[in-house]
């Protein structure tokens, strides 16, 4: 995901060093040139603000979620289903002595069930107040995405309500808006017997 300009400028610098190695008297110049290039590199980077995301698969689709809201990724070993909860609540897990509720976002978003999925991971989201996990099949990677490459998504593209989407990248990677998910009152279960 590196900026091609940055890579080429590094190559130039590397090339400069290689040619210079035989000519020690030119070292100061070369170093100066290199420092100059590096300075430009960081300036270029500052222009493109990036967000860090975790990409994961769920029911044969790939999604991404910003890491700032991810507390940790936990292997799903022993999920205890909880009775009398809405379908989107998959259950509870024990994360080092703390009870964390786990949500199936496929159910929460009313996405069609697509075959049988291999839910093996829980991505634990937190905004310091609310904590819950979302189910994932596999974790793909952690990557940086320049903000300017993210475009608002068409709801028809994913079936996920626009409210929960941060956007879609050129590669059609759907980025979920964890902050909205965490702030959504609909995700909080509060039901009395009546």
């Amino acid at each position, binding site marked *: 995901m590196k900026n091609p300009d940055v890579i080429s400028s590094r190559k130039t610098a590397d090339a400069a060093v290689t040619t210079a190695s035989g000519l020690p008297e030119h070292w100061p110049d070369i170093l100066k040139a290199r420092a100059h290039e590096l300075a430009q590199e960081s300036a270029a980077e500052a222009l493109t603000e990036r967000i860090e995301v975790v990409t994961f698969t769920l029911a044969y689709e790939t999604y991404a979620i910003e890491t700032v809201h991810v507390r940790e990724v936990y292997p799903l070993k*022993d999920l*205890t289903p909880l009775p009398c*909860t809405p379908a989107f609540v998959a259950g*509870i897990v024990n994360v080092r002595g703390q*009870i964390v509720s786990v949500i199936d976002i496929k159910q929460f978003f009313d996405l069609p069930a697509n*075959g049988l*999925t*291999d839910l093996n991971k829980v991505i634990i989201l937190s905004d310091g107040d609310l904590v819950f996990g979302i189910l994932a099949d596999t974790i793909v990677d952690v990557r940086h995405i320049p903000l300017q490459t993210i475009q608002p998504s068409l709801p028809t593209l994913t079936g996920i309500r626009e409210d929960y989407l941060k956007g879609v990248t050129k590669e059609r990677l759907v980025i979920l808006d964890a902050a909205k998910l965490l702030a959504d009152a609909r995700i909080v279960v509060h039901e009395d017997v009546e």
Partner: protein
Amino acid sequence: MADTNHAFLKRLLATFMTEAQEHLDALFSGVAELEKASDEVTQAKIVETIFREAHSLKGAARSVKLTQIEAACQSLESTFAAMKSKQLPLTATLFVTLHQEIRRLGDQIAALQTEPKPVVARTAMPADTPITAQPEADALPSPSATVVATSRNLPEEKSPQIGTVRVASEKLDAVFLQAEELLSAKLLSEQRLRDLSEIQAQVASRSKSWTNIRTRHPDFYSATASQPQWLEHLEQNTVFLKDLTYQLDAMEKSARQDQRLLGKMVDDLLEGMKHILMLPFSTLMEILPRLVSDLASDSGKEIDLEIHGAELEADRRILEEFKAPLIHLLRNCVDHGIEKPEQRRLRDKPARGNIDITIAPRSGNRVEIKISDDGVGIDIAKLKATAERLGLLDQDTASRLDEHAALALMYQSGISTSPIITEVSGRGLGLAIVREKADKLGGDVRVETRPGAGTTFRIVLPLTLTTYRGIIVRLDDQLFVLPITNVEQSIRVHEDVVQTVENRPTIRLEQATLSMVWLGDLLGVPCRQKAETGLYQVVVLTATGMRIAFVVDEVLGEQEVLVKSLGRQLSRVRNVAAATILGSGKAVPILNVTDLMKSAQLAPAGKARLTTAADTEKTGEESSVLVVEDSITARSLIKGILELAGYRVSTAVDGIDGWTQLRSKKFDLVVSDVDMPRMNGFELTKKIRGDKQQADLPVVLVTALESREDREHGIEVGANAYIVKRSFEQSNLLEVVRRLI
């Protein structure tokens, strides 16, 4: 900079608010006490106390530069000073003025919170009271020169008691929670000890059978004797096993000792923490004089509140939990219990009503809070009549109800809005809450009433929160915890005992008929209809005055549990109160028995249950299937589908687990995932095909791998069917399974 300054002032103000509230409450209760005090010694003592309170509040207000409040305190202080020097007679009008003044002061302080204006303001403004404030820090200004002598040398703050420290309650709570977490360490060590004992037993039995080999197979030894190195190996093995047994014994013994020591340390620590968290009842009662005085003046009544035994201590959490119910009860006493002065005069009662709160210790670490008023009492006849009219009971039953049972109607109608209560006396308002809270804390509530003469509520509460114990029950493959305080008994009843009354199954238990409810039905968990023996495992639960027999699959035992919140996302779940973590690390829901009682009443008649129980039995022998899958969700999905179709299903988490189960039990078919840790599906299939006894067992592979190579590999190792997860559907799995069995 401005921001930090503002934040600092805000914090300062918050601290002041907390402190001010304490002083205000003390002032209120002090003045109320003074009003009742008859002898001069007591009066002088009380005046001294409230004088100090006003003085401290003034000091606090000055430190945050709240001039207005400072001035108001000054005025109060001066009045108290005058009372102290007996210049001011204690008249009824004086008390009215004092109450008003303190209330106004309270309003001023409360207003600070709503409008967080900068606190530094108007420092030079003169106080809007007749008393002139003097800027000296120590000397106490007074309305007249005569009181100066008596009010010298007052310490600026209350002198702290020797050996006590003031700690923020949040800090204490945090430490307490951590101490409580140690309970899980205790449970874990119990579990480890059990595991170790099991291994010890296995090794011991293996070692024994190995030692016996000599006597059981004499030829074996003679045959090996010809090969000295074999014999040596065997001897070494024998020695090793013996040694291992010995070491394990020693280890188990020390583990047991450690476990006992740790358990005792944790218990002692928790017990000690509980005592740190004890506070006198007075902390709860301080707000009451003001509350009652406010309520009484609002409703045009005159009421004295007397509090006895407020020095008794109880767990802070119990006090906090009980605050709301207590206020509820008092509100009811004032609103509906005590009559207006004119009505009271008509009944030959003193015009001022009286509410008495007496706290007294009871045996077994318990305390009784008695709240009695000398008001109208509860009209039982009217209560019965209303209950009849609402169809809660018929005339015949109503006439047979004794006083106690009739009063129980007040809780039975349950919901606070119930018209039956509001119409009679309004006392039902919140009574259900009082009962629920008492139940939750492991206490009890009782009402006695003398028509026209008053009502007494007796609430018995524990002084410390007892360690939470629960029984663990099983429904299908899910575990649940039922709080032991609600469990009356756990018994097995034969199906012949079950009788249907109005379409609902019931059982007779000790001369009482109890409704029988399938816990699984309430929770939506599939549970065994009936054990083969025709016996039902029943747990009798009590809460909010009801008793219901709940049917479960199995009762696994009783143990200490550490209650853990479900978190904010699951703010309130029907029928589930919290969760706990067992020694095995498994999270288990703790059920909310009060909810279960309500759910049971709302549930449709359970007759269908009994008939289906008979129906499923007819299907007779089900085929048994082993599902091997590492993903828990996929595992439970496949299991669910197969069970619904009538198969008996066991599960395994990977190939090794599956293989172990296959060797210990007979199955008719295996459904296995391919990609699993330890042993994958291909390897498992190969193992099955290579085993003499299992070779013909049908194997269905369900996998995410969809390439042709994988499919071919599956067939190569001998799988009978290959289902790709992406196109997985309930119907195709069932069809394949049906074809193979």
